[in-house]
Every structure is written in structure tokens, then in C-alpha cells.
């Protein structure tokens, strides 16, 4: 419901190939080459990380790689700016909790 299928000025948005990736272990779909943050937004994910001291949620803020609010753990590497990192098939994305991955219980999967 977040995707724009047809735009009055830009027409149909150009999309890459539909691929699968994993968000905290849960399978999701997005278009290859689009920023990870866009694929997550389309899937309704708002929280990308929690701050280290106060455990406050953070999500997309500037969307151009400047503010670092949207950093997550991507394929095991923390602090990846998801708004400017292209989605690749099979990527493992994890919510970042401080500087490590958020612990996700199996029941939520």
C-alpha cells in the first residue's frame, strides 16, 4: 500500500527484479537495487534500530545517508546506512540495538 504504482508526472516507477530478503529472520520481498530502507518501508517496517542508552526507536529521517538514524545490521555488519545501501537478494537485515543485533525470540518469527 506504500508503493506508488502510477505517478501523474513520473508514470510507473522503474523497479529492479523482485527478490527475497530476511528482516530479523522473517522473509520479505523487495526490488533489487532499491535502498534497503525503501524495501522495509514498503513492508511496513518503521523501526530500524534502538538507541544504546535509552532504547528509543529510530527510523528513516534524512533518506540521503547523512543522519545515520536508519542504520541496521546488514549481513552481519552493523551501522549500515540502509537508505543508501542497495537491496541484494538474500540479504540478512537485523534491527540494530545499540551496536549489536536486537534479540528476536523465535516466537515472533
Amino acid at each position: 500500500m506504500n508503493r506508488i504504482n502510477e505517478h501523474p508526472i513520473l508514470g510507473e516507477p522503474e523497479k529492479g527484479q523482485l527478490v527475497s530478503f530476511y528482516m530479523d529472520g522473517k522473509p520479505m520481498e523487495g526490488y533489487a537495487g532499491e535502498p534497503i530502507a525503501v524495501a522495509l518501508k514498503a513492508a511496513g517496517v518503521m523501526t530500524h534500530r534502538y538507541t544504546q542508552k535509552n532504547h528509543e526507536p529510530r527510523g528513516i529521517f534524512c533518506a540521503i545517508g547523512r543522519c545515520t538514524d536508519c542504520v541496521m545490521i546488514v549481513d552481519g555488519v552493523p551501522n549500515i546506512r540502509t537508505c543508501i545501501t542497495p537491496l541484494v537478494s538474500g540479504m540478512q537485515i537485523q534491527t540494530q540495538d545499540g551496536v549489536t543485533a536486537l534479540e528476536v525470540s523465535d516466537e515472533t518469527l
Partner: protein
Amino acid sequence: MKRYDLIVVGAGPAGLSAAIEAARCGMKVAVFDENAKPGGQLFKQIHKFFGSKEHQAKIRGYKIGETLLAEADESGVEVFLNATVAGIYLDKEVLVQIGEAMTHFKADTIIIATGAAENMVTFDGWTLPGVIGAGAAQTMMNLYGIKPGQRVLMLGSGNVGLVVSFQLMQAGCEVVALVDAAPRIGGYGVHAAKIARSGVPFYLSHTITKADGTDCVTGVTIAEVDEAFTPIPGTEKHFDVDTICLAVGLSPMSQLLKMAGCNMVDDPRRGGQVPLVSENGQTSIPGLFAAGDVSGIEEASSAMIGGRMSGLAAAAYLGFLSEQDKDKRLADLEIALDSLHQGMFAPGSKGQAFAKTDEGIAVSQSLLKKGYLDDTDLERFFHRSDQTDKKSGIHPVIECTQNIPCNPCQDACTRGCIKIGKTITALPRIDAANSCTGCGLCIASCSGQAIFLVDEDYAPGYASITLPYEFLPLPQKGQLGTALSRSGQPLSTAEIIDVRSAKAFDHTTLVTIKVPVAQAMTARFFKPATHAAGQ
């Protein structure tokens, strides 16, 4: 170490323009940009630009971006992407991070065109997911085809806030309100009017006091502010929204210039810390130039001219261009830049309140406070002594009441009905002696979507109004809906009697509605019976 005649930092409108001019003079030019794609913010600008022909007016920003990229390619400019300039050293040496590697490059001249970053404001809950910059909204919807949210509140009524609000509606989002702590709308009245007539309320002298939500934004509270910008208790209003968009100004990203040792100045009118520069962008360090927003916040059209000027100046500095040729070409560009720097929104007039237009007409206070012209304004602006107006037969009604640098309507009318003259900030005048054919080119040419074709004699008791429409789904001939007033209030049932699209209109569809003749001068928008605008 790789050597170039010129290194440009930033592949936005200013940087690319500078690189193109320099390369055309024979210089070997490298452009570094930290982003994966060149063009800066141009590819997010889907509205038609203002200005005149020489400024590429009535062309949408992303099209101008495509032209710039083609020109850079043809002129042999080397563009390095994902390349962050991390340091700038003595003798024009720069340190660039490309991927994981740090590489040194050397040039004889440098042009810094790093642009600007968005300002922020803080309020309770401002860090919640769902609070985003206006630039983020543009990036998501115009580059990546995704809605930033379903229901959005916009903070900031400058041109960015106004333009992005309209773009949000075009993307299919609902804009619930536009809020600004200032007592007046900061951007062009024509941009505000486009939003107001689709029913979005403006709250001037208001600010956000709280964003609600625990995991993400679920609502927002605004309150009126007093003269010291302090919220007044008891004036709070709440909106259910999932997104809060901040458009509260830009600051030059001038850190590299400071690092290089340029003389800097803190100039609030230019947006903050900016280098001291000559008119060609020459900083206090010979051979080091600054162009575009980094040397003072303006807009893309002036950034492109400024970029070209600094590119030519760099070429002359190294002897790739004779002083005589440089002076001649810079003089032309200065005239083009000067014409953009006129009128009520000129850089030198920032924040200034104008009581009258250049023509001596009292400005619309309603437009400044509510975003639309009220009935008393119509009398002043449409029955002016400097124009002849008509009340029968098809004729243009131009709701352009502020002195802004823009004149495509004059060029669009082949019949000479629309006159602006040489000063492009003058208000357009109607010359009713020349008869209008109803071709509609003026409507599509108006970047402010402020021109309407009205025919009071369409049918007994009915008038037709042709208006610009840039939403989906497009209305169909015979479709019924509601005619909305300038303030977005429903007036009556309206029937679509014509829908025109043409390549020359560039995605602006001309929709003609039939309304009771009494509404000929009040109905200004069409809301389909079953859909809200843009949904």
C-alpha cells in the same frame, strides 16, 4: 597521484554546470560526489521551474538534470560516484574515499559545490520514526516510488514545504495541514494556492508541540505561538497522522571550505556559515571557488548560473579562457542571474514584508496567511488599470499577484493576450484586445498553476473553467464531482466537459469543468465524486 586541471566537489546543479563550462574551455575536469547517482537534488524536483527561457523555465527539474548529465558526458567531464571528499589540503590536493579506499587527487583549481543540508527543529517526540525531513519525503516518493506516509503534517511554509506538500498529494498521500511558526507564508503564493484549493488548511503562527506515539508517529499536536514564538496554552490542536515532515530551511555544507582555510562569514540571509566570495565564486584562496547553495541558500536555477560562472572563472584563472572572453560571457550570466534576484523573494529581501507590488497594488494578506486570494483581492488584481479584462467569451484569468521572476506565460500565448514585458518579475497583464483561442498553452506553461481559462458564456446560466490538473486518476469527460473554491470549500456539482493532454503540456492535464455562472470567478479546483484529490 592523479592530476586534473579542475576538481569539482559535488555533482549537483552547481557542480555539474561548473564542470561543463570548464571542460568546454578545454580543461581536464573531475567531479566527485558521495552519492550513487549524479544530479544532486534535481532528480527529485518534479515541478516546473520558474524564471524565463534562458533559465529553462516551465521545464521540470528532473528533465533539466537529464540535460545536465548529457552535457557533462559530451564535454568529457569525469564523474566519480560514491566518492566522498574527506579532506582538502594545501596546493589543491584532495583526499577522496571511494569504496573502502582513500585516494589522493591533485588539481590546479577546485570548485566546492557541496550544496546544503536540511535544518531540523526539536519538539517532544521528534526522534520517533515517522518524523522525516522534507528532502527525505522527496527522495522516497520521487526517486524510489514509495509513499513517505498516508497522512502527513508539513512543518514549514517556505517553497520547499509548499512544493513537497503538493508532491505528497501527487504521490497519493493526504496532507492534513501546513504549519509554520512565522506569521506569513514564506514561499510563493502560487505554490500555497495550489495546496489551499485542494482543501489543505494553513496554520501560520503555529508550531508543533508534540509528536505522539511510542514506536512510531501516531499523531501530532500543534499550538499557536505568541510573538516570541512561545506556544500559547489552550490553543492546541491534534491531528491523527503517521508522518510529520520538516521543511524548516537549509544550511550550507561549507565544512570543506572552512577546512581549506577560506575566510568564512556567518550570514543568516545566506543560511549560515558561508565563504566570503567574489561574484564569480572566488574564495579568499586563489583558484578555490564555491558555487551553489554552499555559498548561500538559493534555488537550483541560480545555482546552475553560479556554477557556470565559477567554471568560467576557473578556466580564466588557468589561462584556458582569455580575460576578454571571460568578461563577455560572465556579463551575460550576470544579467541572467540578476533577473532571478529581483522581486519580493529576492535573496536580499528574505523575510521582508511587502505592502504593495511593484505595480502599486496592495498585496493579498489572505494569500500570505491562508494561502488563497479572497474576494476583495480579486477586485484589486483583476480589474487593474494597466490591463483590459473581459467578462464574456473565453479568456485567461491569471492569479499571479506577487512579483516573482517568471514569464513563460507571455511566451506561451501566441495571440499576445498575456503581457509581462522585459522585467520578468512584473505581474502578467491581460490584453483583451487580442482574442483568446482557448488553446490552454498558458495554463500548462505556468509553473505556479495560476492560470485559468474562463468562459462566462459557455451555456445559458453556466460558465466553463479550464484548470491545470496534475493528479491521478485523471477525470473523464462527463464525470461529475464537486467544484472547490480557492480555499478548498465545496461550491456545487461540477461536470467535466473536456480533458486535454498534450506533449506540449508536459504532464499538466487541462481539465474543463462546467459550473453555475455565478461561480466563474470562485471555482478553482475539481474534486471527483468518489475520490479525494490525488488519491
